[in-house]
């Protein structure tokens, strides 16, 4: 009989991170002063959306009190190379405008001064002469022959065009009983963490090295690109992340441009320099999710079976293709079938540059746009073909038996049960009751609608999926790429205390707590006694190109490294103890902070005794065991293979689900929409910490609501950004986020060691589609654009009013 093992994994343990955060003791990037003699930076930015830099006069700024230096784009270009993208079109992304400016807010010069106040004073005195060129803001306009060209070396603003075919979509459409099409636009918004970017760069002389502190979140695939741009070997660029990071949702990926900018400034001026982005800079010049214009077509047979899908995507990439873009366009690609069995799929992707800020990682990364197309199409098709949207979905869902399922695009969906999830969704929402209510409200002449969005949640990315932007021939030339490895280090010191080092750079997702739970379980100790270090120092810590916090990779991938590593430490302890006990390793177990012989409770040693032996008495260790008790595990999922010659790629490790139902009413006289009911069913596999899971789900929903109903980063026709402050970029407050009912379906993943699936994007991907579907249902029309603000909805209801 085995004794019951007290399980830490799966418990709703309060977070380890919290006491420091709750008492003002956590240290964020702006709290750090890691080097003496820090100078402060203000960035001079282009007021024009498009133009040629004629001259920059720095003299009066340099003459000001407290100013140490002013560095211009051309100074920087002397020591910094453009950063390449996988798209081979000659676009030279630099974090500073050199000859041209291509969006309003683009850096053109950097002032270095003794404090930020003086730096800003001097920045106003830098006079930048720019010959304005015509700007182009929208992606469709940018593709016109007459449109002003952003990058003269490229012959078009459409910098990448690729077509993909899986199965035989042409025949599927030719034979379809009915086809349904939807043209749509998807607006631009951003997750806007409350903490902005911050960078401290120090170009050290000996060793000759760039050391940079920042709240960068990865992916560390950008590290080799940064080292390349600076023209140094990888070990000459030391990146250190701050111990705490005030949210990111992907957007702190794009800090890397500023890491380069500040590094170059430090090298050129000889000062260590610090820059903390202000909110205006963040909203106008950091990063955002991609605006899309698209069309989607579905081919159906007479029973409503979906036989083919055709996606026509035009993505507005902003002024540059900044790595890892165009990943946002390719993240969902291999899962283009969504939750459905659809054998024939065609995709056309056009990537377009415009005079707007470059896009990048942002919560849901590519998901909101993708599900807006697919899930709006399904609701729309249900109306057109005379189905209930639930029935049309059920008709096409992948069946439970189909898992693991390889999609036409090459993804492997690990596990789930979509029909059951739909049952749960309908039950929790009282779908029948909602439909009755809808009928009642409509009889009274008012607007009420129900919408669905059924999404899958790819987690733990294959670093190679972005190379779908290349042709198979280009990929072959570049050499094969695959995988998304994860690392963890566990150290048990001579006193027996445990330190865990992660490569996941969290920004609030509770990784330290969950890692401690996993390690505590493996080593039979208390999570409270485990230190988890989540800041990375590339000089000291295990990392690789896929390190970082993105694409829900913690539960899907990083946990595997922690488990593996903890098991190795456990095995070492047991081996040492077996030697001491003179018994077989298999007879030794860890329990209650002790290493003991199974079944003989009094044959036990405290873990710290065994740990001490590993450090103090290596000579007495069993053969083959290294001294000390440090283990590093670097794991990689075998699922994540290189893209094949037919553009199929296994793009993620796990595929959880997010099934949403929204019911809304709209007040005709104000256009105000009220979310009457919102239900969200998730399959995150095994939950490692339900408290953290719940937090991620609620937060993802709030971002989805923000994007769907409130937030937009818009431009006027001259390319001037219109939302520079939190007064006019309207994030939802506690009064705006409606209640949501969450339900869990649990189908453990076969692909992760703990059966967990990644999560975090959650409803940020599906809420825009679900709410738009509900509005389409309420208003009886399909031309729905986001955000669904009162003036927009009022306008749709009152088109007749001039």
């Amino acid at each position, binding site marked *: 009989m085995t004794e019951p093992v007290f399980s830490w994994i799966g418990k709703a343990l309060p977070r380890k991170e919290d006491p420091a955060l709750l008492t003002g003791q956590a240290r964020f990037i702006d709290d750090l002063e890691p080097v003496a003699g820090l100078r402060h930076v203000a960035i001079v930015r282009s007021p024009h959306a498009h133009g040629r830099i004629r001259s920059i006069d720095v003299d009066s700024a340099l003459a000001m009190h407290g100013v140490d230096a002013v560095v211009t784009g051309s100074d920087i270009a002397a020591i910094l190379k453009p950063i390449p993208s996988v798209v081979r079109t000659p676009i030279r992304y630099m974090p500073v405008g050199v000859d041209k400016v291509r969006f309003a807010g683009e850096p053109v010069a950097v002032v270095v001064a003794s404090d*930020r*106040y003086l730096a*800003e*004073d001097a920045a*106003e005195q830098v006079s930048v002469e720019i010959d304005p060129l015509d700007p182009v803001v929208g992606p469709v306009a940018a593709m016109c022959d007459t449109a002003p060209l952003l990058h003269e070396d490229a012959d078009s603003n459409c910098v990448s065009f690729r077509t993909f075919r899986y199965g035989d979509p042409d025949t599927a459409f030719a034979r379809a009983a009915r086809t349904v099409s939807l043209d749509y636009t998807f607006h631009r918004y951003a997750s806007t963490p409350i903490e902005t970017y911050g960078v401290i760069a120090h170009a050290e002389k000996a060793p000759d090295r760039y050391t940079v502190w920042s709240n960068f979140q990865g992916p560390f695939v950008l590290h080799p690109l940064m080292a390349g741009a600076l023209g140094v070997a990888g070990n000459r660029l030391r990146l250190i992340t701050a111990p705490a990071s005030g949210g990111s949702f992907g957007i702190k990926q794009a800090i890397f441009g500023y890491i380069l900018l500040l590094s170059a400034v430090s090298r050129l001026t000889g000062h260590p320099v610090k820059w903390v982005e*202000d*909110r*205006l800079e963040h909203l106008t010049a950091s990063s955002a999710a991609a605006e899309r214009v698209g069309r989607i077509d579905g081919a159906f047979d007479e029973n409503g079976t979906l036989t083919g899908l055709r996606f026509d995507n035009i993505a507005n990439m902003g002024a540059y293709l900044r790595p890892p873009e165009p990943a946002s366009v390719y993240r969902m690609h291999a899962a283009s079938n969504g939750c459905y069995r659809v054998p024939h799929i065609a995709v056309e992707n056009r990537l377009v540059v415009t005079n707007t800020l470059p896009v990048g990682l942002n919560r849901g990364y590519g998901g909101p746009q993708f599900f807006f197309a697919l899930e709006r199409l399904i609701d729309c098709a249900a109306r057109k073909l005379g189905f209930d949207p639930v029935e049309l979905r059920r008709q096409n869902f992948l069946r439970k038996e189909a898992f693991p399922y390889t999609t036409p695009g090459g993804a492997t969906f690990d596990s789930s049960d979509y029909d059951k999830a739909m049952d749960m969704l309908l039950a929790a929402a009282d779908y029948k009751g909602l439909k009755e209510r809808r009928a009642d409200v409509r009889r009274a002449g008012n607007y009420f609608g129900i919408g669905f969005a059924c999404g899958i949640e790819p987690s733990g990315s294959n670093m190679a999926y972005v190379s779908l932007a290349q042709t198979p021939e280009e990929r072959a030339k570049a050499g094969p790429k695959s995988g998304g490895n994860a690392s963890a280090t566990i150290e048990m010191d001579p006193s027996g205390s445990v330190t865990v080092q992660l490569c996941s750079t969290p920004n609030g997702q509770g990784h330290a707590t969950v890692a401690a739970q996993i390690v505590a379980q493996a080593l039979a100790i208390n999570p409270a006694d485990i230190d988890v270090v989540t800041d990375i120092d590339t000089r000291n810590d295990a990392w690789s190109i896929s390190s970082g916090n993105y694409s829900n990779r913690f539960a899907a991938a990083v946990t595997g490294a922690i488990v593996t590593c903890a098991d190795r430490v456990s095995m070492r302890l047991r081996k040492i103890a077996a030697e001491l006990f003179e018994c077989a390793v298999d007879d030794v177990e860890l329990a209650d902070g002790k290493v003991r012989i199974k079944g003989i409770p009094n044959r036990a040693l405290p873990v710290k005794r065994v740990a001490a032996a590993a450090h103090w008495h290596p000579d007495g260790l069993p053969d083959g065991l290294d001294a000390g008790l440090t283990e590093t595990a670097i794991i990689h999922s075998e699922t994540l293979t290189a893209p094949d010659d037919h553009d199929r790629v296994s793009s993620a490790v796990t595929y959880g689900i997010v099934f949403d139902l929204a019911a809304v009413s709209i007040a005709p*006289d*104000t*256009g*105000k929409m009220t979310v009457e009911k919102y239900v969200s069913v998730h399959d995150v596999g095994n939950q490692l910490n339900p408290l953290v899971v719940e937090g991620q789900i609620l937060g993802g929903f709030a971002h989805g609501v923000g994007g769907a109903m*409130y937030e937009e980063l*818009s431009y*006027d026709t001259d390319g001037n950004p*219109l939302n520079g*402050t939190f*007064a*006019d970029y*309207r994030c*939802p*407050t506690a*009064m*705006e986020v409606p209640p949501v009912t969450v339900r869990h379906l649990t189908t453990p993943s076969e692909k992760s060691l703990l059966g967990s699936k990644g999560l975090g994007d959650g409803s940020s991907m599906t809420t825009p589609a679900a709410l738009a579907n509900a509005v389409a249902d309420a208003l009886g029309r399909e031309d729905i654009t986001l955000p669904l*603000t*009162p*003036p927009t909805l*009022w*306008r749709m209801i*009152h088109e007749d*009013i*001039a």
Partner: protein
Amino acid sequence: MKPVPFDYARPETLEEALALMANYGDDAAPLAGGLSLGPMLNLRLARPAVVVDLGRLALHEIDSLSPDRPVETGALVRQAFLQQRLKADLIMPLVGEALDCIGHYQTRARGTVGGSVAHADPAAELPLCLVTMDGSVWLQSTAGRRNVPATAFFEAALTTARHPDELVAGLEWPDAGEPGTAFAEFALRHGDFAIVAAAAIVRRNDDGRVSGIRLGLGGVEDAPRVFVGSDDAVNNFKDFVEQSMAVLRPTDDPVCDAPYRLALARKLGLAVIVRALERAGLHP
């Protein structure tokens, strides 16, 4: 996002403050709660030579809580404080209702009534109430005091009749014919400046008969505006609202177009009148 350099003056008395205003005029920025001026300074939209901190002046009084005289509030009365007093003393329900809509719990804690009026955002609640109640603004300079009717004080967005050497020292709120008042607004988010705000007052004679109606609208144009109607307008209040609408020239901006503003003005105008009538015991 840091302000330009400025000198800082903190007068202890109104006289000292007025002397500074006389001296600096337009180059001086009077600072009260700081919730409007602070952001404008930080964004470098305001670039005064000197910031005059009014914080220590004795303008924190709420005077004359007797029914036959206007209530006078010192410019530095904090919004949250006034909110509590009005609720406790059961006076000026219109202002009380409006205060609930102003900004947030945190901003009302420091925000002052004078600051809001002096700033003159077209959609701000207190300017709208003052205009609707036919109140006035007490302006003070070294030359003395003058009271400007609210209807003349708010000239355009962020533009008032205050002379550069004057300070808004207080506000006068005449009897509003309670209880026949109502306030409502529509904003994109809770606590945002309204797109449209509306206030209504139904007045009665001493004999209890209706004598007239005042409908104030904020956010529609670049300054709050009041429409005044007779007892006849009360009986035909829908016509009265329509006539008022015909006169309005609503602002058109990228967030809200003019027809939408007008539609909200109509809806909210009708709503506050109906509610004011009900509260006055008159059933519309």
